[in-house]
């Protein structure tokens, strides 16, 4: 298998006092965009560290395409963007990319053209490429780091908080780049706190808490009831003049699910935007007076909230 396999991974710190990972098992399919979310101190970065071969697990095994994560064959086809991005600040942007291009053992022949293209790919202009990295803003550094991670079209990309410090245009660009990378068949592991971003780009998400995988969610193909809508009617209507059964029937017709009725509000789960439109049409068609429809928090936010407030050891 060309994917990533994690078997019963356990990792402790401080002579076993802090259990960062506790028997984590996962399989990430080739070409999958896989998200890791969870509260601070949940073990996400430790998991990524083990996937990159930076940390040695106490027990369990990580294999990428059947090899050890620190195997040079794997490293030659991998890209990594760390959370705390510290670049060699004495270099220019182009120097930095050329340096990593060479370290990645990519052919020297087209190096200059490739690093310029990589710079343009993340929306940095050629002038910025000739500027010293110490003069880069936080967002520019993050873009440069992303360009570095995507050099040579890697087969595996590990991104730790890739959109942190990036402006909204950069976030959109980041999503577009991830779509491109996905289309190219690259396996992506994304560790992020930005749940809306994770929800938009990932195929599957693991919710990590206290070193364990608490939930595995499929977000794309086949994902059901991804969003929740709150429908409010005038006083005395929803849940009173309009009984629960009528709301359930309307929801059924729209392919939605009635979650809760609390006059004058009702909560419905819908699969996507089109499902939301169908629900509103079905409610209006059923004669339900709809005064306001508001989307609730995203699916992953719900996962966070249902599993309790973020916390745990730092």
């Amino acid at each position, binding site marked *: 298998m060309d994917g990533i396999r994690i078997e019963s991974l356990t990792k402790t*710190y*401080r002579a076993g006092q802090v259990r*960062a990972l506790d028997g984590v098992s996962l399989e990430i399919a080739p070409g999958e965009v896989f998200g890791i979310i969870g509260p601070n101190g949940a073990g996400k*970065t*430790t998991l990524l*560290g083990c996937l*990159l071969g*930076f*940390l*040695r697990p106490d027990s369990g095994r990580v294999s990428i395409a059947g090899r050890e994560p620190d195997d*040079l*064959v794997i*490293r*030659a086809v*991998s*890209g*990594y963007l*760390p*959370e*705390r*991005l*510290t*670049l*060699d600040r*004495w270099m220019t942007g182009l120097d930095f990319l050329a*340096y*990593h291009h*060479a*370290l*990645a*053992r990519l052919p020297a022949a087209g190096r200059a053209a490739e690093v310029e293209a990589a710079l343009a790919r993340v929306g940095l202009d050629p002038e910025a490429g000739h500027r010293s990295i110490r003069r880069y803003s936080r967002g520019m550094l993050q873009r440069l780091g992303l360009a*570095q991670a995507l050099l040579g079209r890697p087969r595996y990309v*590990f991104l730790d908080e890739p959109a942190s410090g990036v402006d909204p245009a950069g976030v959109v660009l980041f999503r577009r780049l991830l779509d491109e990378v996905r289309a190219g068949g690259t396996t992506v592991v994304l560790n992020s706190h930005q749940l809306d971003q994770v929800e938009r780009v990932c195929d599957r998400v693991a919710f990590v808490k206290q070193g364990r995988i608490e939930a595995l969610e499929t977000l794309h193909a086949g994902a059901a009831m991804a969003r929740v809508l709150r429908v409010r009617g005038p006083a005395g209507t929803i849940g009173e003049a309009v009984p629960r059964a009528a709301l359930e029937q309307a929801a059924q017709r729209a392919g939605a699910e009635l979650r809760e009725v609390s006059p004058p509000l009702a909560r419905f789960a819908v699969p996507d935007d089109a499902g939301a439109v169908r629900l509103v049409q079905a409610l209006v068609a059923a004669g339900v007076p709809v005064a306001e429809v508001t989307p609730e928090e995203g699916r992953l936010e719900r996962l966070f909230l249902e599993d309790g407030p973020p916390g745990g050891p730092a």
Partner: protein
Amino acid sequence: MNLTLVLATLRQRFTSPIRLVIMLLFGWMPMVPILMAPRTGFAALGDCYFLALALAAGMIGQDLSSGTLQLLLARPVTRAQYVFSRWGAVATGTFLLVVLQMSCAAFIMLVRGVPVPWDQAALHLGNSALLALGTAAVMALLSSLAAGLGDLGLLFTVFLSAQVLEKVGMFKSWEWLVRGAGELLRGLKPELDLAPFLHGGPIAWFAVVAYLSTVTLCLGLAVVVMNRRELSYASSGN
């Protein structure tokens, strides 16, 4: 050794303003005696120990403390390659500085009408190369143990401890302690005098073996330390 890493290290070291000032200081100070008495020859230049230290300080530790090592080791580079490349770059850089220093000294001698002692030049160059390789190896080990510029602190601590032990040994007439402290001090500055080789004298095999074993031991230990090191901000500084 990885040529990309060697070249990047050299560029990094030679573009740091602070290092440049220090290297200029250590590199040009020995020119004063040459300017005043050019007949003293290359011996007046002294050794390149402090030049090597100026180039070597933080050679691995600064990558550890800044976090750049993670990004670097995510590439197809083994940790042994990394250590050897840093060592090679520092030794090469020091050697280039010595060549530059000697060229300037030779120029001064020629301008002042003093014949350049080429045999002395060859000896100085050879001894400097060996000292550069030795000092870079010691610093590679110390730098793998301490983040930032902690290698200089370690070097100073070991040096001071060895001095104290030597004095205690002398005071108490403990020969073994004096000898042990002396070996420790020599270990901090691995050098080998090539004069006997050039002048056809007997080869001091003990000195050769001591030099080679110090260099290989330091490099070997540096690789072991780096291989055992875990890289993550989640690992509480491990």
